[in-house]
């Protein structure tokens, strides 16, 4: 073997470590959660780590994750798309540079600081400006029932919405910028206004990439831990079922963060938490692969590899 080959194989081996890590991760998570894995684990709603009467059902946390992520997507994706459209189609060059920078900073803020801000500041915004008015006027709708407190599912969902904006908006912006100018020109030449150009020439072309960006945001929201843990109120068992937006809840990630260090190693409690981790793993992996696929396809078109 020539030195060049040796070099190449060493590098190849090293770069394979991540693949190995991912494999090992599934294996280990699976191994440790095996004792608790059952249908009752996934569909149960009771959570009792007391040895002797142990019971682990994680449905409330799965739902908590799904509901908070759904709020994040419903609120965060349209805003992100607006930002992406502004940045790629409307903003003058210098504003675009500054704004992209600001949004990158938003992405750089550590999640525990979002949590701190959520706990002491944002929570009161949500309570006073959103929850109180909603519960005053729309309390007959079940999801708006309960005393507004600000440490609940809605706040968690909204803070997630803020946190996914940088990812979703910058990926969508890239997708929009990958739309060839000939598409915009086609719309312009029909006598379209700016918005019609965006709608006909840009958005319809970039649809699947935008969906990809949204799914990427979903992946982010599902796995996000600290900020959610700090504002969601951390309910347990049936109480954590997300029946109202104004109720304390719990996500899979926040459950792990809250309980991991308190779990008695002689009980099944750690295994149950690792099982939650496994479900989170599977969910995140699926979502991520789907997003990669969609985004990769549309960015590929730009490079001219696919027509």
């Amino acid at each position, binding site marked *: 073997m020539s030195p060049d080959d040796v070099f190449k194989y060493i590098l190849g081996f090293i770069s394979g470590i991540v693949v190995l890590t991912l494999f090992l991760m599934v294996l280990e998570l699976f191994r440790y959660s095996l004792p608790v894995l059952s249908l009752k684990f996934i569909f149960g709603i009771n959570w009792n780590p007391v040895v002797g009467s142990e019971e682990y059902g994680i449905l409330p946390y799965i739902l908590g994750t799904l509901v908070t992520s759904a709020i994040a997507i419903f609120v965060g994706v349209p805003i992100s798309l607006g930002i992406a459209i502004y940045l790629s189609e409307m903003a003058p*060059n210098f504003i675009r540079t500054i704004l992209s920078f600001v949004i990158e900073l938003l992405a750089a803020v550590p999640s525990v600081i979002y949590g701190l801000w959520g706990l002491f500041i944002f929570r009161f915004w949500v309570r006073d400006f959103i929850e109180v008015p909603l519960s005053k006027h729309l309390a007959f709708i079940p999801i708006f029932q309960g005393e507004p407190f600000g440490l609940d599912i809605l706040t968690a969902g909204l803070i997630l919405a803020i946190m996914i904006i940088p990812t979703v908006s910058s990926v969508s912006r890239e997708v929009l910028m990958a739309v*060839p100018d*000939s*598409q*915009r*020109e*086609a*719309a*312009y*030449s*029909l*006598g*379209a*206004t700016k918005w*019609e150009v965006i709608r*006909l*020439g840009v958005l*319809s*072309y970039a*649809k699947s990439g935008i969906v990809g960006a949204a799914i990427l945001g979903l992946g982010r929201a599902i796995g996000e831990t600290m900020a959610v843990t700090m504002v969601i109120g951390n309910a347990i068992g049936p109480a954590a079922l997300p029946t109202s937006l104004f109720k304390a809840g719990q996500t899979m990630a926040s459950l792990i963060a809250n309980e991991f260090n308190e779990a008695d190693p002689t009980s099944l409690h750690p295994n149950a938490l690792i099982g939650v981790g496994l479900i989170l793993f599977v969910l995140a992996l699926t979502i991520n692969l789907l997003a990669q696929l969609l985004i990769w396809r549309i960015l590929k078109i730009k490079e001219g590899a696919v*027509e």
Partner: protein
Amino acid sequence: MDNELISLGSKAGSQQKYGRTYKIEIENLSAWFGTKQVLKDINMKIRANAITAIIGPSGCGKSTLIRCLNRMHELVPSAKVSGKVFLDGIDIYSKNVDPVVVRRKVGMVFQKPNPFPTMSIYDNVAAGLKLNGIRDRKVLDKLVRRSLEQAWLWDEVKDDLDKPGSSLSGGQQQRLCIARALAVEPEVLLLDEPTSALDPIAASKIEQLIVSLKRDYTIVIVTHNMQQAARVADYTAFLYLGKLIEYDETSRIFSNPKEELTENYIAGRFG
């Protein structure tokens, strides 16, 4: 008539414009990209219901010139224009004229076919109509069919109207783009090297199509191909380094050019 350009709504097709010999009059038109001047003081009158070809070596400003005729040039961030372009006697660059209305009256077809790939063939043609508020399915059906027939595409696609526009061949896509442009009933049709991305057979079909359209439209076509200009155009303009060197009846330009530059270019001595 002033109002017509400023507002929208008149359906005045070019047929109603009998009597006006010149559809477009270009006066002292100059254009820039940044500080680079790419059109220099162009003066030119384009006849109604005729085909005018613009020829010249690559980079001489042909595309820029026709993009100035529907105010597409200014969409490039650094681009600038000065001078006047009269459409039916109204300067499209005057302050109270809306470029969106200009573009609705002056349609354009591009070098590379650019159908909206995610839309069906039907929706591609209907896109411009829907912008103008036509929603009635029956009216749309009729206009889509008429436009596709005008573009000689109807027979080939009438059973596949809901297939995506990108599923057609290159030549069909280009005719789809022509149908899409025709659907909104423009008065002028600008074509920027519409056949250069196509094979000879598809190209010849498009050429014949263009000739058939001149009865209803004023047509300006940019082409690299001098035989093409000779075959289809009634008038030909020769552009060189941003200047209009010569502009005359096609037969005159090709048989008896006044300028030596034109003669050299046509003889294939440069470009």
